[in-house]
């Protein structure tokens, strides 16, 4: 029989008996960040492609969610900080090695830009809207003139943000579950998918919806492919990673992962979307909600389970 014990010390709260440091705030933050990135990516993309007429929700209306999502996300992140009064230290330096750092800077840039983006569509949404100050009016004019440039900026930043929410976790080699290069693309794709789901849900235009739906199906396909590879990778890897995979293959996260993430969050909406594309009438809210919930739960599970897995030595 083998025993491995910590016989003294090491009952540091939040660290022992297993890491329990990041709670709901981080998955919420990752989810909202991914969602915002997804919405902005497609908004910017279709805007650049000049499709803002065909895809009005994607380009104009869905982005209204973004400032809200980003602010809430940042709020969640802030709540997670244990030494809050020193928050500003984030913006005294840029550390390229630290995803947290460039994530913080990306958010610093993308949040105001997203506000500007939606502000430039306010008048289209509320026709008799007047800006309070004259300089705002002239600024709006400027923005609308350079919207294409803004779209490019947002496209780039949205990609960075998406990748960031993905690799935040996978940068932590210390947690075997997160220690895989698949996690980054997976979170990115999942973020795009949640962005599309939200947009789809908002869109009233069946053509826009079916276009989005088709993209989403592709994304779901990619996600399933990545998840398969994730597990194959784990199982072919070291003992700690096999153990990590076991959490989902019989371990404590098996049910929540397979039921909520795979079935509810991926397969079920995929089937509904296929049916929809085949002409059946499906209320868009159902697959959209399923994708959003699946994406959220996926992040909760990954954050939680990742903290349980640790190196053995």
């Amino acid at each position: 029989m083998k025993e491995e014990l910590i016989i003294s010390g090491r009952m540091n709260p939040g660290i022992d008996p297993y890491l329990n440091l990041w709670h709901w705030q981080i998955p919420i933050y990752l989810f909202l960040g991914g969602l915002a990135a997804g919405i902005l990516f497609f908004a910017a993309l279709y805007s650049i492609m000049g499709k803002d007429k065909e895809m009005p929700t994607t380009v104009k209306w869905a982005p209204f969610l973004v400032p809200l999502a980003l602010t809430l996300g940042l709020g969640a992140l802030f709540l997670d900080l244990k030494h809050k009064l020193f928050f500003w230290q984030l913006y005294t330096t840029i550390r390229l090695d630290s995803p947290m750092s460039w994530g913080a800077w990306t958010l610093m840039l993308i949040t105001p830009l997203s506000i500007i983006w939606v502000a430039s569509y306010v008048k289209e949404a509320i026709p008799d809207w007047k800006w309070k100050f004259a300089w705002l009016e002239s600024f709006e004019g400027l923005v609308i003139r350079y919207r294409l440039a803004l779209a490019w900026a947002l496209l780039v930043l949205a990609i960075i943000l998406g990748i960031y929410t993905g690799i935040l976790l996978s940068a932590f080699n210390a947690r075997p579950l997160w220690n895989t290069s698949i996690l980054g693309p997976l979170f990115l794709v999942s973020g795009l998918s949640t962005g599309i789901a939200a947009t789809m849900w908002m869109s009233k235009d069946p053509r826009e919806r079916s276009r989005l739906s088709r993209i989403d199906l592709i994304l779901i396909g990619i996600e399933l492919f990545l998840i398969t590879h994730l597990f194959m990778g784990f199982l072919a890897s070291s003992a700690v990673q096999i153990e990590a995979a076991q959490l989902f293959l019989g371990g404590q996260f098996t049910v929540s992962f397979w039921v909520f993430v795979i079935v509810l969050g991926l397969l079920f909406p995929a089937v509904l979307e296929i049916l929809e594309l085949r002409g059946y009438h499906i209320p868009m809210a159902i697959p959209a909600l399923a994708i959003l919930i699946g994406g959220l739960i996926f992040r909760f599970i990954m954050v939680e389970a990742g903290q349980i897995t640790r190196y053995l030595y």
Partner: protein
Amino acid sequence: MRYAMAIDTRKCVGCSDCVVACQTENNVPVGYCRDWITETVDGTYPHVELELRSERCNHCDNAPCVRCCPTGASHIVEGGVVLVTHNECIGCGACIQSCPYDARYSHPEGYVDKCTFCIHRVREGQKPACVEVCPTKCMYFGDLDDPNSEISVALRNRKFKDLAPEAGTKPQIFYLI
């Protein structure tokens, strides 16, 4: 200069003096610790083996905790010692997540804390508190770049291992076996 520590598992009795001494020297609140003791038992009675280890931050040469720190609060000073500047730390926990040894903890005041190699003592020419107190004198501390330091001598004369080398962190605490 490269500070490192070697701990002789043949002598360590797991008494945990190094843990209390660290707490009283460094004002670590009761209920928290910067170092800790593990016990590994292997075999079947009466053929049993026991290893006791005093563990702490490994002051890794390739320290993920420093790399992932968004503010630079986690940083490296002379001799490769990894430190946290408390008033630069925002308590984001990234460094805690990045440490394969779970050597860091969140101090009740919010910042992240961990072993400092007692740099305040080392700078004054003293040894770390845990090394100084250990009743079995099983810990060696010093400069790896100095071939005559007690740690260099210890590592030259004995077989040793480090923990979780596969994590790639290049730990600087060695266990003499």
